[in-house]
C-alpha cells in the first residue's frame, strides 16, 4: 500500500496533505474511546468521542492504522493499568480518595474502583480523576504514569506536610494540581490552534542571586523590559495581556487560602502562573504586583530554584526587597516585580517634577498601576524621598480602566459549571480548537468541566465573550 492509499485507508478519502499531521487535521473521521480501547465511532457507544487529530496526537499513526484495519484497537499496555498509575499518583500527592472524589465530582466508590486492577469505569469518570491528579488523562492506560510530573507530585506532598504557614490543605493541593493540569493543556491547545508560542522560551534563566539580590532583580527587570521592547519608563498597560499574549504563559485564577497571593508552577516543561482570586488580589494593583512577582520567578529562576512550585504569600510580597533578609529567590523576585512595573528612573523623574510628594506619589500609583504600600517603599528606595506620612486613605484608588484591562475572566461566564480556573484563555482556546475541528465537543466539555450540551449551547458565548481579549 503506498502512502496515499494508506492515508486514505486510515484518514478517509476526504483527508488532504503530505504529512500525518495534515491528514489527521483534515480527516472527518470520528472515533470513540473507552477505558480499554478506541474504535470507529458509532451512535450507541457511551465513551468519549475523539477526532482523528486527537487520536493521532495521543496514540500515533499505528493505532489509527489498526482501527482502520480491525475497527478498534486495545490501548491498555499493562494489565494493572490505569489503576496502578492512579493509585500511585494519589499516594504521591498524599490525597485521600474522598478528596479526589470531591474534586472530581464523582463518588468515592468510583475512585476506589479506578484503583483496582481489572475494574472498568466510564472513561469520562477516569479523565476527571486524571485531571485532578495533574496527569495527562488522555494517555491513561496507554502510558504508565500518564505523563505525570513526579517531582511536582513530590513537591506538592512536601508542602502539604510542611510545618510553617505555607502548609497546604488538601483542597489547596488539589487546586494547584488542577492548575498544573490546566497550564499543560492550555499550552498544548495554543499549539494546536497554531497560536504564537510567545517569547518566554527566549529568556535564559539566571543563577545570579549575588548580594545584594535586590539589585539583580532590578537588573533583570530592566533586561526584561528591553527584551519585550517596552519603552523606557513606560507603564505596562495590561500585565495580563503581556503575560498571556506576548510571553505565551498561562495565568490561572484559583481560590486558595487567604494568605497565598500567587504561585509559579512547572508541570514537566510547561510553566504557568497561578493567582489567588481571594484576599488582597481583589485589588487590581495588588494583583499586578503578584503577577509581576510570579513573572520574575517564571522567566528567570532556574529549575532547581523554582523547584517545580513557588508559592508566595501576601506578607512576603509586601516586604521591600531591600529589607527582606532571608530567601534570595524571593528578594530578587520582589525587586524584579516593582522595577518591572515601575522603572526606578521613571519614578525618580515623576518625583523630581511633581509639585508635591503627594502629587508625585499619586502619579506613580496611577501611571504604573501599583498600590500605595508598594509605591511608598519604592519611592523611598529609588528616590530617597520619605512619603510615609502621606495618608493612604487620601490617595487615588484603582480606576475602572485598570480593572477592565487586567480582567482575567469574564464576569458572567457560561457554562456556569466551569470552574474559575478554566474560564479565561483556556476556555477560549478550547472553543477555538473545537470550532476548527481539532477536538470534539466531548473533549471541550471535559476541559470545561460541563456537559456536552452545556458546551454546545454556550460555545458562541465563549467566543464572543473572550475572542477580543484573546485573539492576540
Amino acid at each position, binding site marked *: *500500500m503506498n502512502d496515499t492509499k494508506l492515508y486514505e*485507508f486510515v484518514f478517509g478519502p476526504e483527508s488532504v496533505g503530505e504529512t500525518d499531521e495534515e491528514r489527521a487535521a483534515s480527516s472527518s473521521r470520528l472515533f*470513540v*474511546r*473507552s*477505558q*480499554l*480501547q*478506541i*474504535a470507529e465511532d*458509532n451512535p*450507541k*457507544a*457511551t*465513551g*468519549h468521542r475523539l477526532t482523528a487529530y486527537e487520536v493521532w496526537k495521543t496514540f500515533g499513526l499505528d493505532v489509527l*492504522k489498526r482501527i482502520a*484495519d*480491525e*475497527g*478498534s484497537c*486495545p490501548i*491498555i*499496555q*499493562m*494489565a*494493572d*493499568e490505569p489503576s496502578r498509575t492512579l493509585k500511585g499518583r494519589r499516594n504521591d500527592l498524599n490525597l485521600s480518595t474522598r478528596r479526589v472524589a470531591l474534586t472530581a465530582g464523582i463518588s468515592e466508590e468510583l475512585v476506589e474502583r479506578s484503583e483496582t*486492577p*481489572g*475494574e*472498568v469505569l*466510564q*472513561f469520562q469518570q477516569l479523565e476527571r480523576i486524571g485531571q485532578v491528579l495533574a496527569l495527562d488523562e488522555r494517555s491513561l*492506560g496507554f502510558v504508565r504514569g500518564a505523563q505525570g510530573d513526579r517531582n511536582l507530585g513530590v513537591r506538592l506532598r512536601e508542602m502539604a506536610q510542611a510545618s510553617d504557614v505555607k502548609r497546604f490543605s488538601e483542597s489547596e493541593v488539589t487546586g494547584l494540581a488542577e492548575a498544573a493540569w490546566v497550564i499543560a493543556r492550555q499550552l498544548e491547545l495554543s499549539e494546536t490552534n497554531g497560536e504564537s508560542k510567545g517569547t518566554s522560551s527566549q529568556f535564559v534563566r539566571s543563577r545570579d542571586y549575588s548580594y545584594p539580590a535586590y539589585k539583580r532583580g532590578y537588573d533583570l527587570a530592566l533586561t526584561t523590559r528591553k527584551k519585550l521592547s517596552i519603552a523606557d519608563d513606560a507603564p505596562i498597560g495590561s500585565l495580563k495581556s503581556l503575560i498571556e499574549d506576548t510571553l505565551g504563559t498561562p495565568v490561572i485564577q484559583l481560590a486558595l487560602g487567604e494568605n497565598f497571593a500567587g504561585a509559579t508552577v512547572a508541570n514537566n516543561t510547561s510553566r504557568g502562573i497561578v493567582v489567588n482570586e481571594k484576599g488582597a488580589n481583589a485589588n487590581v494593583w495588588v494583583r499586578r504586583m503578584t503577577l509581576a512577582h510570579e513573572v520574575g520567578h517564571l522567566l528567570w529562576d532556574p529549575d532547581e530554584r523554582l523547584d517545580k512550585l513557588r508559592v508566595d504569600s501576601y506578607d512576603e510580597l509586601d516586604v521591600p526587597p531591600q529589607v527582606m533578609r532571608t530567601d534570595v529567590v524571593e528578594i530578587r523576585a520582589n525587586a524584579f516585580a516593582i522595577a518591572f512595573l515601575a522603572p526606578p528612573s521613571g519614578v525618580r523623574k515623576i518625583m523630581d517634577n511633581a509639585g508635591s510628594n503627594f502629587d508625585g506619589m499619586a502619579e506613580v500609583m496611577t501611571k504604573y498601576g501599583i498600590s500605595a504600600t508598594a509605591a511608598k517603599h519604592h519611592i523611598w528606595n529609588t528616590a530617597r524621598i520619605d512619603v510615609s506620612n502621606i495618608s493612604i486613605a487620601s490617595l487615588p484608588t484603582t480606576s475602572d480602566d485598570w480593572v477592565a484591562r487586567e480582567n482575567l475572566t469574564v464576569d458572567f461566564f457560561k457554562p456556569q459549571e466551569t470552574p474559575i480556573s478554566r474560564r479565561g484563555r483556556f476556555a477560549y482556546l478550547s472553543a477555538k480548537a473545537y470550532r476548527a475541528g481539532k477536538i470534539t465537543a466531548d473533549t471541550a466539555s471535559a476541559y470545561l468541566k460541563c456537559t456536552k450540551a452545556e458546551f454546545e449551547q454556550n460555545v458562541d458565548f465563549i467566543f464572543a465573550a473572550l475572542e477580543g481579549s484573546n485573539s492576540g
Partner: protein
Amino acid sequence: MPEADARTRAAFDEFRRGAPLKPLSPERVRHSDECIQITQGDGLEVLRDGPVVAGEPPPSIAPPLIDDARTEDIRLWVVRERDVPFAPERCGFARNATGLVQNKIKHSNLTGGASAHCGGEILFLDEQTFVITGRSGRYGPKSSEEMESVSKAFRGSGYHVLSMGWDPGTEQPTPFIGALPKWVC
C-alpha cells in the same frame, strides 16, 4: 481436517440460527495474503467437544486478570457454517507471508475470505478452560447479546469459559488486557 463433535455442533448450530453469516467486507482487506485459507499444517485446529459435563457449574475461583505477557498465546477463532476453527495469530503461515501486518494472520485466513457467523480471540488456560473475546474486525459480534450468545455456545461445547464480554464505551467486544473476564454460566 476432522469435523466438529456432536456437542460442539449442536451448541453452535443453535448460535448460528440467531446469527446470520457475515460476508467479508472488501474494505477491510489490505492484501490478498489475508484471504488465503490456512491449513492444519499451518497450525489450524477445529474446536472439539470438551471434558466438562453439561450442567457442571463454573469453577468457584475468581476470574483471573489476563497478563499482558500472555498475548503471544492468543489464537483466532471463527464460527464457520459447519465448524469452529482456530489458529495461533503468529502461526507458521503468518511468519512466512509477506502481506500480513506484523506477521499475524487475519480471521479471513480461517475462512479463505468466505463468510462466517462470528469471530474472535481465544486464550487457553488449561485443557478444559479458556478465555474468549469477540474481537474480529471482519466477523466480530455486533451486539452484547451476540457476544453472550456465542460465549454460551463455547460453554455448550464442554468447556469452562471465561468471556471478556462487551464494552459499552465503544460498543465493541472487550479486549483481553485491562478488564476482568466473567465465567459463562
